[in-house]
């Protein structure tokens, strides 16, 4: 994995200053500690920070084509680079490295702007065509790797992280009210928006072409599903076998590296399946890495150990205490560059540190399976609520909600009639494209109430949830309801939060590259053609995935109900009944007033509730995390303390 940055000046005759590029790439050293590379010429400056994984000896970037008319820097991996290289060499292209990067310049020469269609990987690409005087930016299909840009009178600047744009003096950091509102609703921003005004994210599955002073975006890939009732599928057994083959192929490709590759093991079905699939290809000891917690509510060590024993892995565990999370949060926010609604990314950053200390740079993980195969409870919840909506007066239909959320200590469904009232909201609109998501968005969204009216007024004067729902990508009404829900989840939680705050940013903080076999686009496209009942069968989630991989795993793991990975939240920031020093400072009335986002008195009440241990629910924990991390973001970027 790596960091990239670059400049296209407004005056294409100018050569961008090397010193400015050095400042931009210098702050991305954590993404690429193995060396820097630069290319400058009239109209272009490219910079690269390398994390050496493939072709350690000659794969340094930027990389050019045969004549030097095309240059590229990229962050990510092109997993099918071997096959692509063979095709390109057969077509007459000459390579000078063994890297995956080099296929990009030759693929662009061969296929033009359609080159992205031929890539299987995770990537943020910046390619300069000197003859056409054109910059091409491209991001992978699901948004695994970040790619940000800013346009000013000076030109266009791009980078892997916003701190690079600030370091290069392209613009000053300022929080975008609508971006913050999106975090407070969807858990993350929906590209192209970011938490920072003037900083734009290239959406997943898009390329951007900057030419003649004009920037044009094009979508080259999106999650697509069959129309309801029109899935063309063979028998279940044949489909299971096809899934198995696709998954194994994805893992095989994603093991390509010139450095050792490990695996994260949460103890759940998905990461266990990845670990088992790796085992099929390797007889050398496989290192697996897991987090453990003191509280049973969060801990999965028994399952992790069972899988590690079954697959005979060299297993490493990192116990994480609430204290560790409290201490590490500021560093995490520096890397995440966004407010976060849960702490879950923080232990993952600490685990990445352990991975690095153990001498590994790459891990495969199970992320993505829940989006692709409908593993989350939100999908089951949507199914139950739609079932309930067909008979709104039913008293037993909503009791099905009790089957969900059993793992939560203060489960919101523990009080049936009241929870029914809560989940029954908008029960009358099952055709609403956001039917499944509105309860979660409404719960998260409550934190907007803590905002100062003057700041809140910059978002919307009306009820915010409906306005903000319109900002979410709209699924096709012809798809089955489950598929619509998956589409919304992929475009909101997956890209904007999971792959960002629990993925790229926290792994890169430790210079570790995460890889996601479940997010191979061929596997996604295959899964998107499945009948919904093969994804959720009655209330059994990821049914077809369990059929495909169950034989590889201990039976208890194969049958295990989804327990989402979570970590202690608000409790991590108080010790002996007092807030940590930096927390007390960040949430002090003076600091909150100076930052200008939230009402100091309301924040004070929330902080006191958390300090007293009375914040038992999801809503309060989310509100506390959002306020605290917004304050930290402000202190680190907008008005450094």
């Amino acid at each position, binding site marked *: 994995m790596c960091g990239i940055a670059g400049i296209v000046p407004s005056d294409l005759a100018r050569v961008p200053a090397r010193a400015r590029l050095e400042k931009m790439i210098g702050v991305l050293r954590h993404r690429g500690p193995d060396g820097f590379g630069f290319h400058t010429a009239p109209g272009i400056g490219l910079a690269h920070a390398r994390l050496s994984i493939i072709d350690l000896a000659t794969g340094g970037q930027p990389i050019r084509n045969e004549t030097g008319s095309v240059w590229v820097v990229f962050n990510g991996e092109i997993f099918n680079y071997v096959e692509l290289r063979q095709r390109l060499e057969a077509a007459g292209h000459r390579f000078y490295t063994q890297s995956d990067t080099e296929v990009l310049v030759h693929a662009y020469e061969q296929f033009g702007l359609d080159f992205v269609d031929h890539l299987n990987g995770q990537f943020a690409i910046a390619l300069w065509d000197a003859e056409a005087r054109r910059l091409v930016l491209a991001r992978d299909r699901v948004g695994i790797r970040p790619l940000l840009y800013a346009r000013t009178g000076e030109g266009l600047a791009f980078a892997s992280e916003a701190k690079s744009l600030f370091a290069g003096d392209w613009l000053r950091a300022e929080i975008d009210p609508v971006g913050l509102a999106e975090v407070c609703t969807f858990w993350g921003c929906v590209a192209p928006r970011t938490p920072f005004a003037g900083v734009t994210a290239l959406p997943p599955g898009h390329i951007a072409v900057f030419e003649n002073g004009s920037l044009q975006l094009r979508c080259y890939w999106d999650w697509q599903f069959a129309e309801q009732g029109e899935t063309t599928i063979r028998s279940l057994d044949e489909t299971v076998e096809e899934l198995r083959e696709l998954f194994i192929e994805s893992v095989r490709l994603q093991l390509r590296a010139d450095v050792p590759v490990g695996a994260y093991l949460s103890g759940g079905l998905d990461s266990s399946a990845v670990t088992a699939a790796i085992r099929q290809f390797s007889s050398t000891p496989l290192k697996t890495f897991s987090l453990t917690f003191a509280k049973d509510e969060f801990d999965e060590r028994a399952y992790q150990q069972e899988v590690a024993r079954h697959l005979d892995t060299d297993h490493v565990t990192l116990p994480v205490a609430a204290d560790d999370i409290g201490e590490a949060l500021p560093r995490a926010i520096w890397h995440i560059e966004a407010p976060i609604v849960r702490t879950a990314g923080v232990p993952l950053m600490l685990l990445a540190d352990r991975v690095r200390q153990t001498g590994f740079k790459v891990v495969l993980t199970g992320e993505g399976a829940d989006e692709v195969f409908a593993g989350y409870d939100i999908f089951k919840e949507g199914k139950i609520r739609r079932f309930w909506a067909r008979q709104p007066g039913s008293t037993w239909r909503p009791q099905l909600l009790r089957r969900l959320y059993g793992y939560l200590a203060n489960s*919101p469904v523990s009080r049936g009639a*009241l929870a029914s009232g*809560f989940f029954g909201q908008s029960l009358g609109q099952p055709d609403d494209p956001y039917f499944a998501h509105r309860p979660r968005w409404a719960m998260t969204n409550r934190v907007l109430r803590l905002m100062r009216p003057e700041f809140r007024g910059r978002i919307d004067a009306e009820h915010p949830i409906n306005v903000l729902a319109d900002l979410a990508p709209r699924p096709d009404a012809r798809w089955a309801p489950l598929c619509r829900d998956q589409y919304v989840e992929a475009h909101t939680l997956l890209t904007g939060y999971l792959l960002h705050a629990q993925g790229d940013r926290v792994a890169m903080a430790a210079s570790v590259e995460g890889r996601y076999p479940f997010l191979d686009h061929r596997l996604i496209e295959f899964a998107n053609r499945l009948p919904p009942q093969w994804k959720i069968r009655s209330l059994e989630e990821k049914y077809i995935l369990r059929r495909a991989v169950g034989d590889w795993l201990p039976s208890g793991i194969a049958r295990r109900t989804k327990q989402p990975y979570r970590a202690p939240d608000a409790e991590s920031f108080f010790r002996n009944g007092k807030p940590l020093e930096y927390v007390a400072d960040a949430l002090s009335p003076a600091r909150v007033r100076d930052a200008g986002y939230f009402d100091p008195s309301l924040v004070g*009440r929330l902080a006191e509730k958390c300090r007293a241990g009375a914040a038992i*629910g999801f809503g309060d924990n989310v509100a506390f995390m959002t306020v605290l991390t917004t304050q930290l973001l402000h202190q680190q970027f907008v008005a450094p303390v």
Partner: protein
Amino acid sequence: MSDIKTQIRSFIDKNFMVPASLGLKDSDSLLDHQIVDSTGFLELIHFVESDFGISVDETEMVLENFESIDSIARFVTEKRSATSVAGA
């Protein structure tokens, strides 16, 4: 009743961080105004039990009794009356 309402309002304002600018009325639905979520109802139940000395049955945990300040106050008043009558 008005003392009970005042106490309830005070708890709701403090515990659920309700801004004065919201202008929450006693009759407003706490659910529709997103003041409480499903866990918040648990907190309300705990509050009425501990501050008003009543016990809330499973069957009484319904929206009719907890949806607004008015309905909570009515429920608490009725429960306390019933308890007084029973003890008489």
